[in-house]
């Protein structure tokens, strides 16, 4: 029975979890190294094969031009949006990128959804390995403050990974689900989610009704470009400056940047529990002073001074979310911390001071979002029937009107699904199309809001003002916009051509899927070939050893036909291994196993016999 999973597709780490029906709780699935944390790092090998996770992380140091981290920062954004990011992140954006970013890894080019799809596929394989069954459906989490384009990009990534995405769930809400199940609490809860690249604050009400527990989001706010990465970058900027005073300009040595970053991140982690941490970094060919090492002790007080502005930035969305929920900080009964960056002591203190109560962090801040996604997956599959999630859309939806002003049609923090209808008509005689520009954001002017898409409504020709086209905007439970149009005079549903401003349109996703199936076949075949060759290797060596021993120990017991059959099988297998047909290799491995079975049995019996001989008759 294929399992439905919950996936946390994070900036720094990604995780996969499922709901264990027997134990009645969600659990994270471990990867090949035993940890459920899969670093969100992707690397492309010279032969084109894709490496994800811990193995890719090592390549950040050895082959940085083929490796990418924090790709979540690029999802649903256009090339012009990310120019600031490029100053601190080594993203290699292809100059041919138009409205979709294309990233260069080695000599291949990928869009961010494709790269995220590699991570999802890796997690999918963890799940399939764990269940020994296929994984086809998933709930994937997104930052609550992700806009429509960012959500669509995530959904596209799921599709590209061969997953049916049942729902996108907001990360703080998922955490609330996991927390609620764990703690069985009721009341008003604030979830403060500070991850690697994004910050979210959600205010929820947990209510018990006769039908079950309702998790109702009252408001949500955040910053999709504020996270632990910013702390890392602040440390990096400072370190780079200090190194410059030692006479070394790191700009001239880009290959060492990742080493320094790694050392700084280690120090950051240390400073979550210790009072001081040391950074040791070997300088690339010594500077004027020929100091070959950058040695820096960082004290807690100094560290907190540096990162205070970053932590303070999280408080403005918190205040806004409370204002939108019409609540004062003291009215919040529980505060939950989510995300690795909440391990920083300054963050915990700041949150505690603001709400006047100690925040909860009993659940592992790295795992809680994935666990919550697994719970939601179970709800959707009909497993859990007494929990209901009522989430909201984080940004107001609007249409551009005359003068470049935005008319809001669905306000922010509206419970989803949410809809609005607008009536449109023509302005001039025989006008055949009405152009619509849909945006998300809170500002007055279209140019200050986030462009989602442009549509054109086809109108039958006629005098100005006669046409009556009703457009229905619907934001679904995943927070993604659907648009439908109806000609009120004819009752006909009109088709709408959507031009997404920052994403892949359906045709492109299809194309990538087709191409990737080819590549997937290739990648898949390559992996199968490697595995098949390994199996062949093992059985060849074992057979050789056995044959040699048999010759040495009991040459009379080896029948001629058997020896010949075994040797023929060995020769055939060797030939197949030299080729690239993994199916053939596998088949011949089977043949060799069969041919050498009597040999193996005899060896076994002899071994037993020697053991038995050594014992007294009475002991057997």
């Amino acid at each position, binding site marked *: 029975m294929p399992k439905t999973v919950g996936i946390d597709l994070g900036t720094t780490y990604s995780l996969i979890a499922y709901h264990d029906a027997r134990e009645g709780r969600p659990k994270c699935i471990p990867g090949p190294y035993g940890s459920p944390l899969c670093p969100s790092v992707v690397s492309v090998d010279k032969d084109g094969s894709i490496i994800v996770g811990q193995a890719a992380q090592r390549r950040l140091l050895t082959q940085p031009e083929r490796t990418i981290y924090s790709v979540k920062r690029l999802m649903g954004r256009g090339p012009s949006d990310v120019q600031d990011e490029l100053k601190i992140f080594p993203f290699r954006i292809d100059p041919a990128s138009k409205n979709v970013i294309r990233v260069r890894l080695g000599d291949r080019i990928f869009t961010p959804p494709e790269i995220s799809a590699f991570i999802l596929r890796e997690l999918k394989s963890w799940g399939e390995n764990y269940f020994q069954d296929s994984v086809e459906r998933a709930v994937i989490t997104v930052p609550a403050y992700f806009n429509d384009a960012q959500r669509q990009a995530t959904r596209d990534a799921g599709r590209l990974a061969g997953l049916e995405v049942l*729902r996108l769930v907001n990360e703080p809400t998922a955490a609330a689900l996991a927390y609620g199940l764990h703690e069985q609490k009721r009341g008003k809860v604030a979830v403060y989610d500070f991850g690697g690249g994004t910050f979210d604050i959600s205010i929820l009400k947990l209510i018990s009704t006769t*039908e079950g527990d*309702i998790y109702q989001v009252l408001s949500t706010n955040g910053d999709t470009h504020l996270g632990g990465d910013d702390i890392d970058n602040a440390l990096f900027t400072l370190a780079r400056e200090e190194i410059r005073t030692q006479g070394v300009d790191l700009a001239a040595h880009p290959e060492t940047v990742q080493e320094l970053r790694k050392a700084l991140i280690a120090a950051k982690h240390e400073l979550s529990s210790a009072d001081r941490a040391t950074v040791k970094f070997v300088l690339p060919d010594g500077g004027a002073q020929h100091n070959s090492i950058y040695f820096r002790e960082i004290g807690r007080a100094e560290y907190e001074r540096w990162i205070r502005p970053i932590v303070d930035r999280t408080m403005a969305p918190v205040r806004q979310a409370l204002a939108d929920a019409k609540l004062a900080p003291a009215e919040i009964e529980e505060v939950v911390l989510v995300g690795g960056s909440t391990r920083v002591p300054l963050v915990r203190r700041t949150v505690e001071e603001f709400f006047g109560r100690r925040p909860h962090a009993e659940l592992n801040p790295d795992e809680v979002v994935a666990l919550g996604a697994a719970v939601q997956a179970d709800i959707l599959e*009909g497993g859990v029937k007494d929990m209901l999630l009522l989430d909201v859309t984080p940004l107001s939806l609007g249409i551009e009107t005359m003068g470049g002003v935005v008319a809001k049609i669905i306000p922010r923090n*509206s*419970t989803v*699904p*949410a809809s609005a209808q607008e009536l449109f008509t023509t302005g001039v005689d025989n006008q055949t199309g009405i152009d619509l520009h849909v945006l998300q954001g809170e500002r007055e002017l279209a140019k200050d809001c986030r462009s989602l898409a442009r549509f054109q409504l086809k109108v039958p020709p006629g005098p100005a003002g006669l046409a009556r086209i009703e457009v229905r905007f619907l934001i679904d*439970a995943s927070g993604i916009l659907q648009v439908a149009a109806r000609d009120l005079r004819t009752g006909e549903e009109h088709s709408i051509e959507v031009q997404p401003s920052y994403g892949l349109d359906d045709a492109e996703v299809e194309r990538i899927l087709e191409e990737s199936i080819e590549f997937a076949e290739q990648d898949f075949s390559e992996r199968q070939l490697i595995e098949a060759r390994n199996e062949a290797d093992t059985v060849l060596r074992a057979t050789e050893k056995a044959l040699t021993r048999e010759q040495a120990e009991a040459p009379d017991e080896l029948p001629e036909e058997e020896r010949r059959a075994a040797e023929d099988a060995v020769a055939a297998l060797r030939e197949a291994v030299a080729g690239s047909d993994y199916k053939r290799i596998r088949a011949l491995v089977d043949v060799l196993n069969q041919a050498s079975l009597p040999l193996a049995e005899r060896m076994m019996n002899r071994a037993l016999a020697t053991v038995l001989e050594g014992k007294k008759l009475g002991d057997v």
Partner: protein
Amino acid sequence: MIDAEDLERRFHSLSWKLHPDNFVRASENERQLSLDRSSQLNDAYRTLVDPVARVEYLLGVAGMRKEGTKKQQTPPELLEEVFELNESLDELRDARASGGSAAPTAGLRAKLETAQHKFEASLAGLDQELARVSAEWDRALGSGADDAAQIKLMERMNEVLNRRSYIRNLVTGVRQELVIRDR
């Protein structure tokens, strides 16, 4: 006037039945219906739970929602404050135009904050007025009052909404200016 708790209870109860979560494995038709109905439910709740939206909706249905002109909207008792506010905002714009800092000076800030508090107090007053008129309306309905009485009440509600809308725009404008800080 509405019993907020009762409204919420009904909202939750209907949500259990209509929410798309229950229809993930259902047919395409059921899924779309669930999406439509639950969005209607959410929109309805949003309209009913907010007293101002509720009155707007009521007036809209009765065809009595008419936005007034600016002149009609400015509450006479606030004329002076509005005048002073416009002066402050002009000062701020001049400062910016001549290349000064974008953030208001301390003196201007104080003036703007005073204006903001005054207008917020007015808003609170208007909300109370709206609640009072709404209660009268409920009573009028209950006692089977004639159309003329109902129309008069609705006109009064309309007036309050217009003033409220005007003052709220003022408050938003002031808040936006105050939020601007020098980086």
